[in-house]
């Protein structure tokens, strides 16, 4: 499996660190609902098909990426940077 890092090009997935489901979003700091925090930390949709997931290019540019990948075929559909570096990409 290879991921196309927007900065480094096509690289083996071993260079990346898997960070899990990208659709799980941390609740706002002033959100005190236990259910919301529980859902963020523990509940996953675990789809068979297209999965949005976070990878970090640990052995490369260290950018966090949102990767769209099919969990049944391992086909990688897109790799997009997230976080502060995302803005610098033309």
């Amino acid at each position, binding site marked *: 499996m290879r991921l196309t890092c927007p900065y480094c090009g096509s690289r083996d997935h071993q260079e990346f660190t898997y960070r899990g489901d990208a659709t799980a979003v941390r609740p706002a700091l002033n959100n005190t609902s236990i259910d919301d925090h529980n859902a963020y930390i*523990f*509940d996953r949709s675990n789809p068979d098909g297209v999965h949005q997931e976070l990878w970090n290019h640990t052995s490369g540019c260290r950018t966090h990426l949102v990767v769209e990948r099919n*969990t049944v075929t391992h086909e990688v559909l897109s790799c997009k940077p997230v976080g502060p570096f995302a803005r610098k990409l033309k």
Partner: protein
Amino acid sequence: MRYSAFAILKNALRGNRDWTPAWRKPEPRSNYDVIIIGGGGHGLSTAFYLASVHGITNVAVIEKGYLGSGNVGRNTTIVRSNYRLSANSAFYEKSMDLWRELSQTLNYNVMFSPRGVLNLAHTPGQMDTHAERGNQMRLMGVRSELLDRDQVARLNPGLDVSGSARFPVHGGLLQPDAGNARHDAVAWGYARAADQLGVDILENTEVVGFLKEGDKIVGVETMRHGERGEIRARKTGVAVAGNTGRVMKMAGVDKLPIESTVLQAFVSESVKPIIPTVTTFGAGHLYVSQSDKGGLVFGGNIDYYNSYAQRGNLPVWEEVTSELIAMFPNFARLRLLRSWGGIMDMSMDGSPIITTGPLPGMYLNAGWCYGGFKATPASGWCFAHTIANDKPHAFNEAFTLDRFKQGNPIDELGAGPTPWYH
């Protein structure tokens, strides 16, 4: 037909014409007391204990493929109970108790072989954690022995215990009562024993939906030989391992504390007996044992990303085989016979779920990560109790679905809610 040495002799004298199939191939009835989705080890053992312990024989086990085609036929066959946390320890030791008698219970030779499971230690610090775990095991009544380097060398002559090894061996923790069993025989044995008690095992029957009355599950929609059907039941148990996400979505449960990943396993060409125990590498993650045919059966970590593909990637091959050779340098020239992948239902704390719910009329058995085989007897025993009594047994009362929200995860490794690290 009861299996025995006498039966073999009698049938041999009659030209082996009288053997009958080990289980029937019944047509599904429209109604059962209990449906178990998933004809793997856990589903079949659940059906067997429902019939034998609780007297509930009007049971159907629904299997989408042929019997033994899932993870029960894909694992590395290790049976052990060397756990640290008391909830795990008590549960897996119950499983060991059932394993010891299983061939007699089922009248089927499951080839349970308590040859010992040896966890190597490569640093003094690791010896300390092994000593701690060994003591925890002893407190729970599980035998354990802390071995020094020379004892390890005597037990496992092929192992590189020299000071020049990449990760020199300091010692190890041995669970002498642990070992292996024949995985296919476990599926076949439970199937045959359950079938003899009246359980219908419906192979090549896929669940494609659930029948609901309001929120309550009242049965399943099936696809069998290209035809849709309905089977109703008062109680529906789900024991589908890596497919938990898929099946639960059909019931309308979109999110669970589970992610599916792929675990690869490997077997080498056959050689003469060389590894007497199940042996695990302490400086990485590798477990190896020798099958009765002589092949070395081994595996390591999961491929750490979400996956429903029953195949993995090559970096795991490299990692696993290099660890094997670091332990046993003389295996470097062995050829791999086969490798394969199976889908693991990795839970958020690395421990299983055996519970009532999450919907009325439904029961869930999931989250086995990559340790489900050794749990097969106790999993079925506890799940049958939970289904029959609508409440868990003491052995599985900690394995709930809401333990995460309650703040009571059973995190054996202390890795946190990261399924790919368990």
